[in-house]
């Protein structure tokens, strides 16, 4: 009973979804804002509670960090959506349904990060696909509908692979309970195959190479949906991968994860250099960050602390960037980089935010992602020497240049056009998120304390 507070975020967001069914002017917006605020309060209060590892929950430091990330992005996404939905001319459904789906989507993510059972984590992550597929299609044009379909079919197929992995793990160990698996650390061949399949299956949802083809699809989703996808959905899938790495005592699983993580960074960096669509470019930047997080989990030790820092800081910064791309899109009516000029002259606040945001998500100092990547690289050097670290740094630099060059071009080139920025309250939301992503730096000692029992290198 003492630990039922961990169910509060899930329960509040589900209640929010249920209440959204009631018709009333602005009712669904008010309910969703209240629910998301309540969730954030409940999550923050849970940060100081003891871990709960039992037959039903598996809530440790990593779960708490994920819950905090989900709660923060959920609230800011709801707030930003209240303004953004007005700009959608021909929505696929009423705004009530949008908020119902958004609230259930958040609930499914909370469920995934507190469950003690790998099978139920799978059910939770699959439920995020069900609830979010329609959110991708909100704008109701042919491209977003096609994106939604590709999202469903690619992600679901990947998740079937992780369901097979769950079957293997259960067949090999007789349990799916995380805490039991952590006590026994099975080492047989079927268990190993199950873990490797799970990494590929959940990796599909997290945008990890070689099943990385859907994150560019979420570049086509409405900006608040892109924000919550990049900010928390990908890390929630990575959370499942982290648990698979954690339950394994076999070095092959960590090496496999490390290779997948490094290849993801390399492929994402190369893809970023050829992008002509700014939303898709930032989607590939998310893929690069997920690769780094996976490298951190695979390494263990301070790599895990680095991964946790990147999860929270990237979630906040990337959601801010996607909110800003929504502002840019609503003014320029194009997602093509070539069509965006004079951003600094026409939309100074958004341009300033986008400049800071692109620096933040590509790991420039003093943003927290830089610190997180340093932790990961330090652990990489300690475990595998300099060569791999140099390769990774090289591709991080390529990604940094690719994103910031293009963003700089959109912001600083061109001289035409007057001020087009409307001073609306929601334009402050991305700036708040970006500021919070810097403040994550001050949470590093707390993260170290939370994650101490989690992984050993």
């Amino acid at each position, binding site marked *: 009973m003492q630990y039922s507070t961990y169910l509060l975020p899930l329960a509040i967001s589900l209640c929010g979804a249920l209440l959204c069914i009631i018709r009333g002017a602005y009712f669904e917006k008010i309910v969703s804002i209240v629910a998301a605020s309540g969730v954030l309060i409940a999550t923050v209060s849970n940060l100081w509670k003891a871990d709960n590892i039992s037959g039903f929950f598996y809530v440790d430091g990593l779960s708490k960090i994920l819950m905090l990330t989900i709660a923060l992005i959920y609230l800011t996404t709801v707030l930003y959506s209240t303004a953004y939905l007005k700009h959608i001319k021909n929505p*696929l459904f009423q705004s009530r349904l949008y908020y119902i789906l958004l609230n259930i989507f958040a609930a499914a993510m909370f469920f995934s990060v507190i469950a003690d*059972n790998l*099978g*139920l984590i*799978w*059910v939770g992550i*699959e*439920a995020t*696909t*069900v*609830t979010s*597929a*329609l959110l991708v*299609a909100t704008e*109701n*044009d*042919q*491209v977003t*509908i*096609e*994106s*939604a*379909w*590709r999202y*469903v*079919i690619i992600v*679901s*197929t990947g998740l*079937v692979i992780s*369901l*097979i992995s*769950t*079957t*293997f793990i*259960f*067949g090999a160990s007789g349990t*799916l309970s995380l805490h039991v698996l952590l006590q026994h650390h099975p080492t*047989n*061949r*079927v268990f190993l*195959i199950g873990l490797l399949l799970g990494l590929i299956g959940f990796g599909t949802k997290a945008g990890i190479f070689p099943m990385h083809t859907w994150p*560019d*699809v979420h570049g*086509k989703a409405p900006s608040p949906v892109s924000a919550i996808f990049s900010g928390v959905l990908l890390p929630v899938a990575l959370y499942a991968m982290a648990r698979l790495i954690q339950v394994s005592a076999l070095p092959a699983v960590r090496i496999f994860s490390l290779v997948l993580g490094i290849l993801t960074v390399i492929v994402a960096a190369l893809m970023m250099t*050829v*992008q*002509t*669509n700014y939303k*898709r470019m930032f989607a590939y930047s998310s893929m690069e960050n997920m690769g780094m997080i996976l490298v951190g989990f695979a390494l263990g030790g301070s790599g895990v602390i680095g991964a946790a820092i990147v999860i929270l800081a990237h979630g906040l910064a990337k959601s801010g960037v996607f909110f800003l791309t929504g502002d840019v899109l609503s003014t320029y009516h194009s997602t093509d980089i070539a069509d965006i000029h004079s951003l600094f002259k026409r939309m100074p606040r958004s341009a300033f935010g986008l400049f800071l945001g692109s620096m933040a998500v590509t790991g420039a100092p003093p943003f927290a992602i830089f610190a997180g990547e340093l932790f990961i690289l330090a652990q990489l050097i300690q475990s595998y020497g300099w060569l791999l670290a140099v390769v990774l740094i090289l591709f991080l630099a390529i990604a940094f240049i690719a994103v910031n060059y293009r963003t700089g071009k959109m912001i600083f080139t061109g001289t035409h056009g007057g001020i087009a920025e409307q001073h609306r309250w929601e334009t402050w939301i991305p700036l708040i998120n970006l500021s919070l992503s810097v403040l994550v730096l001050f949470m590093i000692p707390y993260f170290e304390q939370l994650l101490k029992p989690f992984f050993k290198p």
Partner: protein
Amino acid sequence: MGQTFQILGFFLIVLTLLMQWETYVKGVIWLFSISSFVVALFLVLLGLSHPGQGYLLFVLAGLTVSVRGIIIPLIMNKALRSLYKKPWRVREDRPMLGIGGSILVSLILILIGFFIYQNSLYEVLKIKSGAVPFALFMQASLLIISRKNAYIQMMGFLVMENAVVMLSGWVFSGLPFVVEAGAILDLLGLVVVSSLIIRVREEAIMQEGDSFEKELRG
């Protein structure tokens, strides 16, 4: 009992091969419905051979028949009816493989499924016909990759799910009931949502063609 399972597994592979060669969407939906009934029969037989946990497998068989065998085909058929005046004439008109090619690739994939199983898991599991779910999985993947019609791609995904039920039951004596039930409910939700998306997608393609392909490339 082992031989009965083998016969059911063989029957499922044949049904999936027929889906691969079927061009009409309604035909594929009915074939999927029949294959779901076969999976339910398999679960009932599995329940009879595991007296201790049999009742859960019977419940699961009931859920499989009702959701996979009846409700999902009904939803898909309803979606077809709402979109087309003559739903029975809706067909895959842009298959990536002809009939001959698909027969050849299907057979090769079945062999690959058997090869992968024999060289990776057979040594550990010692179940001779455990390769059937793998062969089914490969067939379903081909169905998704080789077709452009979204309804048929969805059916391919559902066949994959059936393959997982077979795998978990046959090779590993089942997953915990709560996970299996959760998976079925997720599946139902996914089919409802997908039917909506497919319907809007098909309407858009009928009106505007598929010029969106260029924008989604890269």
